């Protein structure tokens, strides 16, 4: 009898103990608000992260992805900031543009980037390069600078490739460059090959992944590189001059520093402000483990075709916190992001 009582008592203690230690996320469902459209590269980045995040969250919750693309990421960011319950069950998989949109005081921003709780980003290294088609004979920077009316193609005004092209043109001091937006990414290259455009700025890894022969066979002239982060040398284009070597003033260096932060945040994961600290810490730790998991790197490369260069939660928080926000630098970057002619240096 005494043995039975002891057994029951032990069982009850074990049960209570088990309940006490049951991870919060066990049996829960986390909704990831993705500010990208389903099916695109942005979606693949999210899909590379989610299974590993689930694996490393204690309790292995179910994770569902809810797509909320629009407004260059504003729609999803506004929703995460204003409408979601900060209970640790809603995570934002944001576009990196949400940082720039706020710092540059763009319209439609109804969130405060500094109040989100940062979980990290799967990628932080993105180099940009500028190239011209070979038929133009602009094989050196001197020749490029001497040419007038170079037509530089891009996706849309404000798009990262558009701004990169404008930054190169501004720092090179090109004569009367024309910026022609309104292409899809593959269309820009096709227009370049057709002679409809003369140049474009692009993600260095993307261009070499898709058209390695342009570099190897010299079909395009590559002129310079914009390193993100600064000092991280690109394997194939590391020999090109870095854009900052053309900077003349502190303001111009700050301009590049600001733009590098906008790019270094990659595709950040965030929690809405007010999320309980202990739940935020669980998710931050899980994200750290996920990013360090070799399976994540394999999966990311398999799905996205790029190497993952994760930014841990504290690094992302620091990058956003330390973003230069000087008004005159912001104004200069706004001008360079817009449709107006380049400002004089």
């Amino acid at each position, binding site marked *: 009898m005494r043995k039975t009582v002891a057994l029951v008592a032990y069982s009850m203690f074990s049960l209570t103990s088990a309940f006490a230690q049951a991870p919060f996320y066990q049996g829960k469902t986390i909704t990831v608000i993705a500010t990208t459209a389903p099916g695109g590269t942005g979606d693949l980045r999210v899909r590379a992260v989610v299974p590993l995040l689930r694996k490393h969250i204690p309790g292995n919750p179910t994770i569902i992805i809810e797509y909320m693309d629009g407004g260059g990421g504003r729609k999803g960011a506004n929703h995460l900031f204003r409408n979601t319950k900060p209970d640790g069950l809603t995570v934002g998989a944001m576009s990196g543009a949400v940082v720039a949109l706020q710092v540059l005081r763009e319209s439609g921003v109804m969130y405060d980037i500094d109040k989100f709780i940062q979980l990290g980003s799967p990628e932080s290294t993105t180099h940009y390069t500028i190239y011209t088609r070979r038929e133009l004979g602009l094989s050196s920077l001197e020749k490029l600078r001497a040419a007038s009316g170079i037509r530089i193609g891009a996706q*849309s005004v404000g798009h990262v490739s558009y701004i990169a092209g404008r930054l190169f043109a501004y720092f090179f001091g090109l004569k009367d460059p024309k910026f022609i937006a309104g292409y899809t990414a593959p269309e820009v290259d096709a227009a370049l090959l057709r002679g409809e455009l003369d140049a474009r700025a692009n993600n260095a890894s993307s261009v070499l992944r898709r058209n390695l022969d342009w570099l190897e066979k010299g079909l395009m002239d590559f002129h310079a590189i914009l390193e993100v982060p600064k000092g991280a040398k690109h394997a194939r284009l590391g020999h090109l001059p870095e854009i900052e070597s053309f900077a003349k003033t502190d303001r111009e260096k700050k301009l590049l520093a600001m733009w590098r932060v906008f790019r270094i945040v990659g595709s950040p994961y965030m929690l809405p402000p007010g999320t309980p600290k202990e739940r935020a810490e669980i998710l931050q730790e899980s994200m750290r483990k996920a990013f360090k998991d070799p399976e994540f790197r394999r999966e990311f490369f398999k799905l996205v075709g790029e190497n993952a260069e994760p930014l841990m939660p504290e690094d992302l928080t620091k990058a956003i916190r330390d973003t230069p926000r000087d008004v005159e630098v912001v104004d200069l970057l706004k001008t360079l992001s817009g449709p107006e002619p380049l400002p004089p240096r």
Partner: protein
Amino acid sequence: MAGMETSLFNAAIQGFLNLLHLKVFLAMVLGVGIGTFTAVAPQGLGMPLVYAIALPVVIKWEPITGIALLIGASSVSAICAAYLPILFGIPGGSGSQATVLDGYPMGKRGEGRRALGASFAAGGMGCLIGTLTLAAAIPAAKPLIYLMGSPELFVVMLWGLSMVAVLAGKRPVKGIIAAAFGLLLATVGQQAQSGIMRFVFDQPYLLDGISISIIALALFGVPSALDLALTKLGVEQQPVPLKGSLFDGVKDTLREWWLVVRCSFVGVWVGIVPGLGSQVVDWLAYGHAVQTCKGSKQNFGSGDVRGVIAPESANDAKDGGDLVTTLLLGFPQGVTTALFIVALLAWGYLPGPEMVKKNADVIYSVVWLQGISGIIGTLIGFGLAAQLAKLAEVRYTFMVPIMFIFILMGAFSVNRDPADLLVVVAFGVLGYFMRRFAYPRPAMILGLVLGDLMEKYLYRSVASYGFSWLARPAVILLLLLASVSFALTLRGRIRARRSAPSSFFSGAMARSEDES
């Protein structure tokens, strides 16, 4: 060139491999089911309505799965469109109206099965010919497509916009107004080329413009449901008894194989040549049969099976021709293909030259789906002829609530944004009044679909070449082709209006004309 052929061959194989997934097959079967029901149900349902309701749902799917449903539905709906004309004497959807002239008399004299058999067999063969033409057109068009830059693409879009002449039917001024409104709506949001916000009013909802799929859903879904509720449209007469043998119709079709081939190419031609529109295809084929068949003067109109074979083969072949223009040039021939383009854009494809260059495998998937769905549709017709006839008696009281539920759920599913529900109601009301006051909604959709693309190509042309792009030989050639096509369109419209017995079919014609 050999490389290109090899690459297209690979694309054709890949296009087929894309379909080898259970979900794709199930989506196609679901599409076939929906298309069959739509074709047979008498409440004035049509493919535009099906596409409008399905779009918000399928654009969230993987592209091939969504395409399977849409193509499955549209492909089979043409094949099964002969039920109403043959059994009830009611002109079917656009493209199947001429069938009533001989199909109904056949039904009345106890040859309903024979007429249906001929319709299915001729439709299946027509579908096959249309599909093969589409498959053959891709390698033929690809070299030309590589030469197209922004100026040429702008002219192609302009050519597409001339489709307003077709979609406006008998109301050119109202068509232009509707298309202009569509173009205006296409400007809402941030303009990609300049970054300027247009008609955004500081509302994040409007930053990317209003979703075309929601507008299409509202414009076509709400008025149809309201119309059905208000008019209580349905079959009021009893069907003729389903007698005779389906295989007699098959034998008739095989005997008249040359008529099937000729009329199929009439259908393909109507599909490919921009501007003729689906509502004339059956009449052109019927007219061709009257002119070329022996004894037609005495027998046509009183139950001659050739009067069924001709329009049905042309109607089914036309879909293949339609897709040639839609997929290879990127502009729609009617509202169904306009909505198909909306779906392709939502999946990230840019129908036209870009898609041929970069997503040829998806185009071939469409070709395969078109062919396979056609075969399934034909088999369904043969296998379930009697059961399908009962579908034609479904009451409007069953349909209306279901339609409203699908419309609202569809609208909300796009972005899960309650604002979309307001938009669907607002454009639904607009669509109802457009329908009531005869402003063609397809013309508005055309303006909406092409507006953004036209602006983009025009901007790029002027920015890259100034006005010298107008002197490019390919631009001049395309402008000439567009002008000739436009002139032919107008002439075709006038002829079609004369040859169609409009007094007899005025109500149905008016409806199908708006929704072709």
